[in-house]
């Protein structure tokens, strides 16, 4: 006679043996796994020679009172074995690839989609910001006359401020009407066509053209290329892009300019971006201010980008000079206005950490492809 205790110990040892055999089968290569599972099936659940059947053969040797308990233990083991093997078979079946399966790790077929130029992205972002603020967005002629680029902006001939912007002149004046699709049908204050002699040094020339054609109020931004005789280096190119803003109406103040530029800075560089006004000088604004934003890298604590000042200069601005209003036939005692001019390249360099402005003009696809489509 066997005792129930002895047989219980035997069942435990079988349980242990199955766990090991199953682990061994799991370790075989995928191609040999089905055979291993089949072998386990025969060895354990075979009706005649399987190990479960072997265990059952001990039943008669037990006292009748213990037989039920023993039978339950063997059955539990049998269920566990069958469940484990069925699970392994199901997993193997699921992992088997159809004959026409693709290798999903191979490269996909890239659709041909072009990339935006970063200057174009900034330009559009600025347009969107100011469109949202109720501005009209305009473009203007790139070849200008001396009057619109300088004289009407309170920079008469021999004004020392003309040295602030080294001008590129045409070898021969051009007699062509500037393209201004936004021109008013009636423009009583517009001057007759003048010989075009220079490449505009700033988009401010647009202010004059627009105000000659339209009565106040004015609320516009003008964006486009401008030209100065600057040698190429890390931060200068002889052509760059400017965004000019102009608001004219009754009671426009310097504080309005600050609110507007703060809104723009937050939209461009993130909520909470601080701006700082520093008094400066431009012939066409009075008062004038250079505007800094809190360094977008260090948030104002000081780093190499901001030369440890915590601030980055981004634009020049001010209240439109009364002489400019007089030049375009506005009454400076009736209206005031603010104007600002910002370099698009400067913003792009700050936004994307571009260290060399010349990269914008090389059109290297390795550079362009880093920007969104």
């Amino acid at each position, binding site marked *: 006679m066997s005792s129930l205790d002895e047989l219980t110990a035997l069942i435990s040892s079988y349980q242990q043996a199955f766990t090991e055999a199953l682990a061994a089968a799991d370790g075989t290569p995928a191609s040999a796994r089905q055979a291993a599972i089949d072998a386990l099936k025969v060895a354990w659940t075979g009706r005649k020679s399987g190990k479960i059947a072997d265990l059952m053969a001990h039943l008669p040797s037990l006292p009748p009172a213990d037989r039920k308990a023993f039978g339950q233990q063997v059955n539990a083991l049998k269920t566990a074995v069958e469940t484990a093997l069925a699970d392994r078979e199901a997993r193997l079946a699921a992992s088997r690839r159809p004959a026409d399966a693709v290798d999903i790790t191979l490269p996909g077929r890239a659709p041909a989609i*072009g990339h935006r130029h970063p200057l174009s992205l900034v330009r559009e972002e600025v347009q969107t910001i100011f469109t949202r603020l109720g501005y009209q967005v305009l473009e203007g002629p790139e070849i200008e006359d001396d009057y619109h680029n300088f004289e009407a902006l309170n920079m008469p001939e021999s004004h020392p401020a003309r040295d602030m912007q080294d001008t590129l002149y045409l070898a021969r004046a051009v007699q062509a009407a500037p393209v201004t699709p936004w021109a008013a049908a009636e423009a009583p204050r517009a001057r007759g066509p003048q010989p075009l002699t220079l490449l505009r040094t700033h988009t401010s020339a647009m202010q004059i053209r627009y105000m000659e054609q339209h009565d106040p109020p004015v609320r516009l931004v003008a964006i486009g290329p401008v030209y100065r005789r600057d040698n190429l280096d890390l931060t200068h190119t002889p052509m760059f892009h400017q965004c000019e803003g102009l608001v004219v109406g009754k009671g426009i103040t310097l504080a309005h300019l600050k609110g507007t530029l703060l809104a723009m800075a937050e939209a461009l560089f993130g909520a909470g971006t601080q701006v700082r006004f520093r008094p400066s*000088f431009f012939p066409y604004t009075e008062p004038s201010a250079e505007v800094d934003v809190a360094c977008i890298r260090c948030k104002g604590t000081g780093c190499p980008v901001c030369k440890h000042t915590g601030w980055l200069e981004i634009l020049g601005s001010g209240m439109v000079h*009364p002489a400019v209003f007089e030049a375009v036939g506005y009454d400076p005692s009736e209206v005031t206005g603010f104007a600002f001019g910002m370099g698009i390249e400067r913003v792009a360099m700050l936004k994307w950490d571009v260290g060399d402005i010349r990269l914008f003009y090389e059109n290297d*696809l390795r550079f362009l492809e880093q920007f969104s489509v």
Partner: protein
Amino acid sequence: MKVLYSWLRDFVDVTDGPAEIGRRLSLRGLALEGIEPAPAGEEPPGRTPIDGDAVLDFDVTANRPDCMSVVGIAREIATVYRLPLRLPAPDAPGHLRTGALTPVDQATFRVTLEAPALCPRYVGAAATVAVGPSPGWMQRRLTALGVRPISNIVDITNYVLLELGQPMHAFDHTRLAGNAIVVRAARPGETLTTLDGKSRALTPSMLVIADAANAAAIGGVMGGLESEVRPDTTRIVFESAWFAPGSVRATSKALGLRSEASMRFERGLDQTGAGRGMARACALVEFLGAGSVDGTMVDAVARPFSPRVVPLTHAHVEGLLGMPVPVPEVERILDALGFTATADAARASWQVRVPGWRPDIARPEDLIEEVGRHHGFEHLPATFPPVFQAPPPSDPRIARDAAARRGMLALGFSEAISFAFIDAAAAAPFSAGEPPIALANPLSETFAVMRPSVLAGVIDAVSHNRRHGRRDVRLFEIATAFAARGERRSLAAAWTGAAAGDHWSGGRRDVDFFDVKGVVEHVGTALGVPLAFTLVEPDYLVAGRAAAVVAGTRQVGVCGLLAPALADARGIPRADDVYVLELDLDAITATAPPGATRVVPLPRFPAVVRDVSLLVDDTLSGATVRDTIQRAAPATLVSLREFDRYQGRGVPAGKVSVSLRLTFRADDRTLTDDEVGAAMTAVLAATRSALGAEQR
């Protein structure tokens, strides 16, 4: 403008160090460019050396000639720190004293003003001197600000220039022929050898200081070598004058000669400063023991200076700035800067007398800037301008260009931006016989002319990418092209390398004419303008691989294969096929049909499709075959397109088999087989009789 910290402290008892002063002035309108430690050395008698003395370098804006001096910057510091300003004066002790000179009509020399518009005031004073080195403290101050010490007399003129901003000159009295100083226009052909040893050819637009015979100095620019103070000079005449800014600027520019004096005169100096400068220079001669002054001065005035009076109201101050500035603060700032503000009874407005050293102040707005910057822009609230009306429409070019840009991006072209000026050789192929717009003063030959075509820059961008190992390039640019008749907005693009299938699975194909033609058609769709093609063969495209693009009846662009010689000239390998296109966007939109797109209702009845293959002469154009079919078919033919062209086995030489798909549909009924059959019979008859086509 460089200033020495210890020198500033002659005039204002500021206790902050150089760095803090620089930081605070930067927020008040004088941007600090840099700080350098100053070399140690002697201080003027009675003053103790300062630890950490430094040279502050300020960027002085063009409107502030007064800040081109130590005293001018000290005045700003005094205003910022609310401290009193101490100026050189006749009763000041030690080295801060100025002289008291008796005005006379004529001294040991005479002064004649012959060009009063260019020089309305000229002050001269004579002294007997012993020329030698100046004392160490003066040499240290000059050296610290970048001025080389020369001799006591010359150093005094430079010292006064730096301290007060008044340029001075010293002549050797004995070399002034006829004891005369004549301020006049230069004579035709007159020359003068200036202090730097160079002979200068003068023109009558230039102002000279002459003796009875010859020019001795160029007014406000530089003295002459002949009359300069030498080691053996014993008698001198000091000059302290006011020269008109425009004239000095023009002369300095024409001669290519800039000096510390010309830099100040051309910004506009203080007409009342000439006397102060002279009094200061004469006092220094005696303080230094360099000689004894005669004690008189000839103050020649052709046009007396009358100070400006500018009205200002408190409401205007607050109204323009958009922030409150209390009345006492307005008055404090104006007073500290040297203005004399006389208030009305209610203190709501002022009559503000402008000191001579502020020629930049002419209008109330100029005064408001002074008040605003010294009250502090940091106090400005951030408010919003009221909206008066809905904004008028934006420039129509912006949305139009954006549509073209989206079209190009969707076709895999990346966006380029190039310089608008290019070299003359790059422009030549696109100039069409008309010379491009050239620059008078280009930065270099690379940037000599304005691009007549935007293609030029795109081709160079392709070249750049090819040189950096990129075989497949698609680039476009939307920018301005320039010609004497005006500016136009152009879309240019270049495509080289793979057109499709650059993938491990194969199917790679290089770009050909029909790819670039498809791009043009797509742009037309994007802009809502149907574009057609006609033959054209500009020199820069390969004959037989080029087409003109037409909108309506107007040529609006070209597309085709770039001439290999041109590609080669721009550094692109000759073997590369570079297909290009350029479209005049302004011309295209000028032909755009007015009105918005309207949706055509979807057809209610089914279409019938018939394919037909025709054998035709291979010289016959696709357009001719399509036109013949179109004319012969009834109105129910709604679409016709080639889907195959075949030459080879089974097709006789000189022939091509063209397969076309014809789609018939009626709006009001389902077409019957008989109707379509009749249409096909008519089509085949027409192609046979008109084109000699046989059905295959």
